[in-house]
């Protein structure tokens, strides 16, 4: 047995619960895909979300049972380390820090993801404020290619123009929908980035980093559309080609759902490989 084998054992044990892709990521990905499909395709009725959500819940429960039956159970390390809760209070002259009864602190993992989400949402909002307002015309469900045009005057100053966001400036519905799509990229991208950091930035987990960069990149690009349009207010050929991905929330959710589903399937494969065939050399 080599150190690398022990390292695999430690990693697979520590991340046994979050590597259960069929239990968490795949069901969430399927629901997101269905939502994206409903927004994007005119032929997909809204009530499709009900059976897909039911199937996702069923899959999550069945997968949980499968993992327990085939691979066993692991109780993760305590989320609330004792020293974190009481380390300072016993030395404090005022005694323990008062806490609301029954109100639990956020776990380190939740804090980690929440910080990333807030940071990404903040950045996305900042991009929106800095960006010139663009109008997006076109119906996603009708399969129209979006037409993007700048609504800002030519002498717009992006360093001062963001102040107009506090004036309750009107944004057309197409632009608001585009912002929803960009926020979806930001949220899912932040999730994958958080997952990669949570899993110790290992080379074996680089798929999470690739997905994070892809989605966060699309979010930043979409949010900066107003800054990237030409002087005449129209987008260039490359931006025009990418515009459905950048401004249609249905396409954004389809991409995010596909990313989540693929990541879940890959996690499942990793877990199955880690727990399927490792052997320890036995001493006679």
């Amino acid at each position: 047995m080599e150190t690398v084998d022990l390292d695999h054992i430690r990693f697979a044990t520590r991340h046994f619960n979050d590597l259960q892709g069929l239990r968490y990521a795949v069901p969430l990905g399927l629901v997101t895909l269905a939502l994206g499909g409903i927004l994007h395709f005119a032929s997909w009725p809204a009530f499709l979300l009900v059976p897909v959500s039911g199937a996702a819940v069923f899959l999550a429960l069945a997968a949980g049972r499968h993992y327990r039956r085939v691979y066993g159970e692991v109780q993760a390390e305590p989320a609330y380390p004792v020293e974190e809760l009481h380390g300072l209070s016993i030395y404090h002259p005022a005694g323990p820090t008062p806490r609301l009864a029954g109100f639990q602190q956020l776990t380190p993992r939740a804090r980690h993801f929440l910080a990333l989400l807030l940071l990404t949402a903040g950045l996305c909002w900042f991009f929106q404020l800095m960006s010139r307002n663009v109008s997006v015309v076109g119906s996603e469900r009708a399969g129209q290619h979006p037409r993007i045009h700048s609504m800002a005057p030519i002498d717009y100053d992006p360093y001062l123009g963001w102040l107009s966001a506090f004036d309750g400036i009107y944004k057309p519905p197409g632009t608001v929908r585009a912002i929803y799509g960009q926020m979806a990229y930001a949220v899912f991208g932040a999730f994958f980035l958080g997952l990669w950091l949570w899993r110790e930035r290992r080379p074996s987990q680089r798929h999470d980093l690739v997905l994070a960069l892809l989605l966060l990149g699309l979010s930043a690009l979409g949010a900066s559309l107003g800054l990237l349009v030409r002087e005449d207010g129209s987008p260039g050929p490359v931006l025009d080609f990418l515009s459905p991905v950048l401004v249609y929330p249905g396409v954004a959710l389809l991409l995010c759902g596909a990313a989540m589903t693929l990541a879940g399937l890959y996690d499942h494969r990793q877990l199955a490989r880690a727990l399927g065939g490792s052997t320890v050399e036995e001493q006679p």
Partner: protein
Amino acid sequence: MSETPFEQLANLDRRVHDPARLAILTALSACERADFLFLLRITGLTKGNLSSHLSRLEEAGLVEIEKRFVQKKTQTLARLTDSGREAVGGYWKSLEEIRESASQWSPAAASLVPSAG
């Protein structure tokens, strides 16, 4: 006088140094507790071997075994005791010291040390 790397190696904690037990202890050091089936899958040991190693670790006070009934089936859960965590940490520290002293050790330097008696 400090020990040679070989002497340090010979003095490693035998309860932990065995590959199978080290695999079990490494898995348990990465979680609060794990059940028998998981340890079986992650270490690749047979049921008999795992059971025997767990018993030895429990006798040595490194592991705590808990049995409970879940849906009319017995579930065996294992967790590392405080002394188990210390033993695993100490083992890795000793290995690191051996690695360091082995990198500085040379036969010529060792021959200069007067033998005892």
